[in-house]
């Protein structure tokens, strides 16, 4: 059993660190979103992007989550998701897009060590995320429509 203590301790330490990081990002982001929303700014951004987001079956507000995911990280996007009311289909589609394309400023640099150039990996992930959102929305609509 003593051999298990080490990985358990490491896992515990890592999860606490991650939760702290999560709190430090999600709380300010969701407060910012709540304030912007209060003054109608989210509404106008959402209105502008809602035709584009409709392609993925998402409301215009999802734009904010996607942009935060692409340029900041995964957790910032979650901060927005907590403030939105989405159905399970919408959450899944948004989650797939976020899962594929997030934290580009850092991860594309990490990935460049494999020889994958930064603009190539950023474009690849962006296009893959958009394609995944489109395809999933089509599949969901087909399954539910038929």
């Amino acid at each position, binding site marked *: 059993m003593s051999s298990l203590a080490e990985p358990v301790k490491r896992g515990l330490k890592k999860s606490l660190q991650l939760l702290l990081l999560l709190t430090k990002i999600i709380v300010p982001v969701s407060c910012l979103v709540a304030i912007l929303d209060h003054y109608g700014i989210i509404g106008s951004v959402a209105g502008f992007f809602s035709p584009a987001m409709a392609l993925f079956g998402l409301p215009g507000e999802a734009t904010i989550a996607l942009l935060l995911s692409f340029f900041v990280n995964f957790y910032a996007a979650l901060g927005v998701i907590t403030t939105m009311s989405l159905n399970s289909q919408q*959450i899944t589609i*948004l*989650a797939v897009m976020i*899962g*594929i394309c997030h934290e580009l400023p850092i991860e594309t640099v990490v990935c460049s060590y494999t020889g*994958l150039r930064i603009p190539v990996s950023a474009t690849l*992930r962006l296009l893959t995320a958009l394609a995944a959102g489109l395809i*999933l929305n089509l599949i969901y609509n087909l399954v539910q429509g038929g």
Partner: protein
Amino acid sequence: MEIVILLAETIANTLLSIGRIALLLIPVLILIEIARHYQFIEKITGKVKGLLQFLSLPQEAAVPLLAGIFFGIVLGSALIIEYAREGYLKKRDLLLIGIFLSISHSIVEDTFILAVFGANPFVLLATRTILAVIITRIAASLIDHFAIEKA
């Protein structure tokens, strides 16, 4: 005053969802560490022969690829650099691993966190994995095609 109430509500809601994440995240990260402790990756490398063959990657690619898929892009890339330095993998193989991992990495942790927020974990996993496999396969064909033309 209105703003203060709004902010208090937002903070309370956010902390509540972080609490929900904590309940899942702590056991998952502990399990990941235990898996790493028992060298889970080294043990399952033999089981992905078919996938590696399909992606036209050598057997040596198994450890960095699986480490990245399960434990994250940073560990995956660190192993890739290590392998590259020791000359186990060709430039082409490194690039293909990079492409695969950029789309699909740290799938356990990511999927769990997103599932806590209500996403369907199976759809999430399947979409990311299938797209990573297809795109890497296409990239392999393209790279090989142009390499042969150049030579």
